[in-house]
């Protein structure tokens, strides 16, 4: 390693060159402007990102909206089983704009999951998890799991019927784990059932986890910026003709997408705020009365359906434990996708078979969502079992085998060549570099 650069030397050599003395002074100590230039204004981004690439930044903004509204809700919410439900009603009725803040937070959870699911399925279609972005993908799965935990605990806080009974069902799942299961449930509950200690610790963790998510998003972004964004063609950037600076091209495209999202989101918040709400959660929690149907929020329905689809024991493992393994396994399996998919080609555009079978995965998950929302009897169970089977088949058999058998179509020589054709500049870029 060479000796660290002196201030005089570096001032000319870093990205802050060309700035005033103050900026150079700061940047030598804290590379603020230089980082902005490296990661935003000058960050080289493929020229061909479609609107499917909007959902990453959108998810980040949604998290900020959730944290901002959540912080204000926490100023008025009381995590005590005797007060929680009424404190939420106080927010809805008497706190200035409390109804607005809560409706944003409540529907924001659904919007956040919708955005993240689209983001995830974009990654699956365009092979964004493949070399060298495996860790980027894995960090994304970590974020998803943290989000699920956060959302689940958040749903408990209003202390309605579905809060209590959802918490009861989900925490009880851990008791299926041999040996340590009951210990884990007791630890989650802080007692021998879902009660006041549970509500207090869920509130505490619900406030904590978003900050953990922020940290993991930081890692996710560092990993992203190491090799840059994938793109719809799934081929590497070959040179400056393939890229444009992130700002202003993608900042404005992201802003436009954000406005479209906010428009749709506002329609829900202002005109359909209870569209996704379960009526049972407007009834205060009651330990003595089980709701007729215990259903989670829509974004967890597929996992819930997988859990209930395992109605049989296998190899001496009881059905309940097997169901728990299958449901949690559906999240864990995502970690291994970079290695389960053996195809050397990233984008489904150049994979004639995968391009079609890809859609069976979202279809099976939508089917599972439908199954999760309905009573498990008759045809519902059968559909759930077929969809669960397909979900695992897709990842464990189809992805590895298809990668070996499929003959991909020829890849374009460069992004610029494919996107611009004869208009592609030869041997250099006009913009940004």
């Amino acid at each position: 390693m060479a000796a660290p650069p002196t201030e005089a030397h570096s001032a000319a050599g870093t990205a802050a060159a060309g700035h005033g003395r103050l900026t150079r002074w700061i940047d030598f100590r804290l590379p603020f402007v230089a980082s902005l230039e490296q990661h935003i204004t000058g960050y080289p981004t493929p020229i061909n990102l479609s609107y499917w690439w909007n959902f990453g930044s959108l998810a980040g903004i949604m998290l900020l909206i959730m944290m901002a509204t959540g912080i204000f809700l926490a100023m008025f919410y009381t995590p005590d089983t005797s007060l929680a439900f009424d404190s939420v009603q106080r927010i809805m009725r008497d706190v200035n704009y409390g109804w607005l803040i809560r409706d944003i937070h409540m529907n924001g959870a659904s919007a956040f999951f919708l955005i993240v699911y689209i983001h995830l399925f974009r990654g699956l279609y365009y092979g964004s998890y493949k070399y060298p972005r495996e860790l980027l993908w894995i960090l994304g799965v970590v974020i998803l799991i943290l989000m699920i935990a956060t959302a689940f605990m958040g749903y408990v806080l209003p202390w309605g019927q579905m809060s209590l009974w959802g918490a009861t069902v989900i925490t009880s799942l851990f008791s299926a784990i041999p040996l340590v299961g009951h210990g884990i449930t007791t630890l989650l509950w802080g007692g021998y059932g879902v009660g006041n200690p549970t509500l207090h610790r869920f509130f505490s963790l619900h406030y904590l986890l978003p900050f953990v998510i922020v940290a993991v998003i930081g890692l996710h972004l560092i990993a992203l910026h190491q090799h840059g964004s994938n793109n719809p063609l799934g081929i590497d950037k070959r040179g400056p003709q393939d890229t444009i600076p992130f700002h202003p091209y993608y900042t404005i495209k992201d802003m436009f997408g954000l406005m479209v999202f906010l428009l749709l989101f506002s329609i829900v918040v202002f005109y359909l705020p209870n569209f996704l709400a379960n009526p049972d959660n407007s009834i205060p929690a009651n330990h003595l009365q089980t709701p007729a149907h215990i259903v989670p929020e829509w974004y967890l329905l597929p996992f819930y359906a997988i859990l209930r689809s395992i109605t049989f024991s296998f190899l001496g493992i009881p059905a309940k434990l097997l169901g728990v393994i299958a449901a949690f396994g559906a999240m864990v399996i995502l970690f291994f996708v970079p290695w389960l998919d053996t195809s050397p080609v990233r984008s489904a555009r150049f994979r004639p078979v995968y391009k079609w079978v890809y859609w069976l995965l979202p279809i099976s998950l939508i089917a599972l969502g439908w199954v999760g929302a309905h009573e498990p009897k008759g045809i519902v169970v059968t559909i759930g079992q077929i969809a669960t089977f397909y979900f695992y088949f897709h990842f464990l058999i189809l992805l590895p085998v298809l990668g070996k058998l499929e003959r991909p179509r020829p890849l374009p020589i460069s992004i610029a060549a494919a996107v611009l054709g004869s208009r592609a500049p030869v041997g250099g870029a006009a913009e940004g570099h």
Partner: protein
Amino acid sequence: MLKTAAALAAVLALAAPGAAQAQQEAPPPPHQEWSFDGVFGTYNEATLQRGFQVYQQVCSACHPVKHLYFRDLEKIGYTADEVKGIASKYTVTDGPNKAGQMFKRPARPSDHIPGPFPNDEAARAANNGGLPPDLSMITLARDGGPDYVYAIVGLGFTKPPAGFVPVPGTYYNKYFAGNHIKMPPPLQPGEVKFDGTPATVPQMAHDVAAFLNWAAEPNLDERHRMGFKVVLFLVVAVIVFYAAKRKIWSRIPH
């Protein structure tokens, strides 16, 4: 112990499909016209005031509206003095006073509207074991919202179909889950004296359902008004940002 048993039951119910069946499903309540439906929907003060009369003179015999304060009634068009007058007819327990005694006093606008029973046990004891639910969130707490309330009190108490097995102490209601409801038919024609409007059962049912929708969502008018402005603003923003995006991207071939 009960909690654990209940938790276990819930888990078993989901592990064994078909084992636990819900109560018999009731038909979905037919949709009614509401002044507060749609983007420009607002509450109608005359309707809400009539609905409050129905609640006060009929429903409140058994059902509380525990999230409502008397002062909230100003939002449905009663003057501050009228609200004081309404509140003063109720008695609430306050205290302790300097002698350490709880005492009764007339209610003030800042008090919650008191319910008919001191606690759930008293409510059950007076109602044949049934607990009349709180009504201040009922339109949020039931599928169908105000349509459900209207269907239960305005449409549901019909002649039971052939083969219906009555249960002592209950009434047939077409729209109630399981069809056995402990509440007797609450509305009789002319039961409430309205100013000018004939107090028919459909009229009273409509008005009380609208009132209860207001009780559950008192901010609906403001929400609709603000939503219109926000949506309009964002429509403009979408157009502006789209134009800006087009303009900026026109600098490069893509």
